[in-house]
């Protein structure tokens, strides 16, 4: 039986996707996203769509900074685990139940579901630091972040680990800033 299992496993495939995504500044995330919400993940489940695993998330919205103020939002994001097959897309954020995030969302795709803008760039996990102060951490998850050609690379913004309150305040007021001017 063990040999049979080993034989079976030897044919299993592991799939991952390395992803290059346009790098968005916090200013761009704040101004170009369709919706911005502070959310808590309530549910997650895996489904098949067009032959590929996807993950369905349901969130409770605790604050809406931009977009319609719905009590709940649902995301369908590529990648997931169906039986023995796991598909993992580098940079596509994954959420566990109970996790809190600030989400910057795109317009819906053809299937009617928005994604975090710039994949993990548009998902800031809220975590408590050693003093129980909430801070935000961008869920980049291995993304390659690209700046377009013939354009000076803007500075990498020090958003990782920002205090939640000042981060949200900055998001609210960022719509007209220009960080490349420094």
């Amino acid at each position, binding site marked *: 039986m063990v040999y049979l299992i080993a034989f079976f496993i030897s044919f299993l495939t592991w799939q991952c996707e*390395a992803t290059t995504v346009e790098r968005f500044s916090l200013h761009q995330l704040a101004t170009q996203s369709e919706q911005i919400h502070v959310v808590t993940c309530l549910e997650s489940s895996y489904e098949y769509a067009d032959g590929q695993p996807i993950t369905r998330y349901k969130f409770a919205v605790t604050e809406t900074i931009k977009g319609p103020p719905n009590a709940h939002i649902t995301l369908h994001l590529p990648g997931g685990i169906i039986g023995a097959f796991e598909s993992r897309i*580098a940079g596509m954020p994954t959420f566990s139940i109970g996790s809190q995030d600030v989400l910057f969302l795109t317009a819906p795709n053809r299937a009617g579901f928005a994604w975090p803008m710039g994949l993990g760039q548009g998902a800031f996990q809220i975590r408590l630091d050693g003093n129980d102060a909430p801070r935000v951490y961008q869920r*980049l*998850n291995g993304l390659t972040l690209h700046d377009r*050609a013939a354009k000076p690379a803007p500075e990498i913004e020090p958003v990782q680990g920002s205090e939640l309150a000042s981060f949200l305040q900055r998001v609210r007021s960022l719509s007209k800033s*220009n960080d490349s001017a420094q």
Partner: protein
Amino acid sequence: MTAHSKLFALLFICCVYSPAQAFLIQTFSGEDAPIQQTWASPERIPFVLYDAGSDDLTDAESHRIIRESFQVWEDVPSARVAFSDLGVTSTRTPSRRDRRNLIFFDETNAFLQAPRGSGIIAVTRLNSNALTGKITDADIIFNGLEFRFSSNEQPVRGTVNLKDVAVHEVGHLLGLEHTPLDGPASSRPTMNPFNRGDGPGLGQTLEADDIAGVSFLYPTPEYALSVGSISGTVSNLEGNGLFGVHIVAQNTETQTQISTVSGAYDGQGGRYRIEGLPPGPYRVQMTPIEGSINADNFGGIFSEFATDFTPEFYDNSRVENTAQTIEVQAGQTVRKIDFTTGFIRPGFPSVELSGLAANTPDTTGPYTVRVQAINTDQLWLHYRSSLALSDRIPMRSAGENIFAANIPGQPVSAQIEYRIEARNDSIDQIFYPENERWFSFNILELSGAPLAFTALRGSDFISVVDTDTRAEQARIAVGDEPIQIIAGPAGHFLYVSNLSSNEISVISAATFQEVERIETAVQPLDMAISPNGSTLYATNSGAGTLTIVDLETRSARTVWLAGLSTGPYGIAARNDKVFATDLTNDQLLIMDSEGIIQSRIDVAPQPRSLAMSPDGKLLYITSMGENVLTVIDAETDQIDGRARLPVSGTFAVAVHPTGEKVYLTAHDEGSVLILKADDLSIQAQIATGDNPRGIAFTPDGQTAFVTNAFSDETVLIDATTDRLVGRYRSGDEPRGIVVNNPVQLSQDTSVYEMGATPSRYSLDPPYPNPFNAETQIIYRLPADGQTLQPVRLEIYNGLGQRVRMLIAAVQEPGNYRVQWDGRDESGEMMSTGVYILSLQAGPYRQARKLLLLR
């Protein structure tokens, strides 16, 4: 556990994503150790191109660029990588099982199905055997619907350079992960997670770290014998191995870097091994992976990095030039290069320099050494010079955990070495630095040519360069992210805005030492000084405020600018008014000298920098958002003129000292525009380098210096012929620049030689005495069989406290004259009273009374 559940447990282990082994290599977790993703036959990795290329390029052009991107990796001589070009296909459906390795442009979003704004440019999909890690199929899909692609030959603003992305993606296809190594565009590894649009070539060439990575994965038979490696452990004070610590080996001759991450080698914390090091001397440093590149750039099991420690070289050195050098031989591993974080053993003294003493032209001294120390209040400064002078002197407390001591002045060309000894009550003793290493600095002999002071944003130093030899003379440590620099009245002091530490560093142009820091609000940026020299204005670009500094007292206050949440950015000042740019509202702010907004003028979009004509009548404003230079009449605050420019936008502006020409940096285009001031016609456009952002003129106006922020160099333009006449390498991200004539020490402590060598020691009676403004002191040093002797000339108050060190130097025999202006070390005027003048010179001791009357 049933066989069924075992199967799924094993499957679960196999499927957890876990990149490990740095440069880095893509791996996933196995039962015992990480499994690397590699090609079984790297000598013939096939790929096939979809026959339709990008819609933005011709098919032939698209295919050529893709093929060139594969070739970049194939050209690494130490790696046995070769691709088998299977031509083109009309089948564009990627499959994870067909083993065709398809490269195609998804122009309809049929495959990616990403919403607009997803930002996805390209996806490399790897399929591997879950047990062996062997890659079985790989496809690269470009998002042709949402992005426009361009070629090196025709770079187009706002497009994605196809080769920039493709070379990086092929690196992933080969099994490489991101590297934590960063740096300027010219040396940043291709596998850095920030694939920046640095321009053709820069993102498409492999650096040492990339080459080491692909050579490690697919080594040629000769490779292992041609390179060496370094291995060791990283642990904390309790001896526990730490996971995810970045270990960087830098070749001290070539400056190339190759790195790894602790735990990447075997999937566990603690052990590391840096492979692929060409033979040579290396300095090895451990540094936390945090900030712009952090665990989130890697994913998988690298989600919990140890970051709570201070960067440190091997062994225990926190300063690069005192770090131990490790010699790497071909085919050998240097073992036991171990690091311990938080090397402060509990209860033991710990010492750290507050700032390195810089090379200095100051022969007068003293040179103050300051340290931060804990678990000790018994510290001594050991110093020695190349002139055989040496001493061990106690360090005095200069604040909480701060201690200081002075090294006396030294003659030109002397090299001074120093280190600190610290003890505690248990007689635990340490030296800093350890292992018989010493810090050092030199007394400079300057050529007399103007000096260029440049803010190196990327390395927290001010670089001092002799403009004649273009050699760097000194590096002055300042705050975090020094970004702009401006000279004060007469050029005696330089002011540096530190963007990240929210302060202005004050530097003595005569001694090259930082003498003070002035607190500002968030992100101080541009600065201007009123023509009468009384006031410095600094924009706080992250706070919507302006900091106003009284330059006599160096007291600062910050005023809020109504209506600004971020910015202001550029600034210029007259005695009666101040101008600043409001980039978010496309306006020029006009304020009174107290920073109260009086009016606003609408100007071209995204106004950035300001420069005033020498007569203070005209104000020039650059625009980042439009190809326009705006000119304001600074008397009437009305727009005086506009000039259309042949570039997309401009950043910095400077007016030639004659007022006849205006220089602008076109940062996007990498050039400088030179305009005639009278009619704003364009005299010249000069290609400078990557992202020019700073301009300064020599005092005689003959030469303009332009800093290229992203190519780490400064270029020189002859301001008469408007031609590029030279360039030199600068440090990391040069930004603001000032070019000044060398400054002598101020008269109050200057020394003059007079007449023939005296036959005996003496300290003449000071004259005048009593005195009010200043008094003159003459002393004489005989030859007395010595060519050099230590001299200390000091002022004490009536309580016996020293208030001023006038001379602390090693001097030759001769007659010397010194003036004292009645101020203490900090520049404060002393009150009326009796003071004692004390001279110590070799064996000679003499004192005289001084009466100061206010």
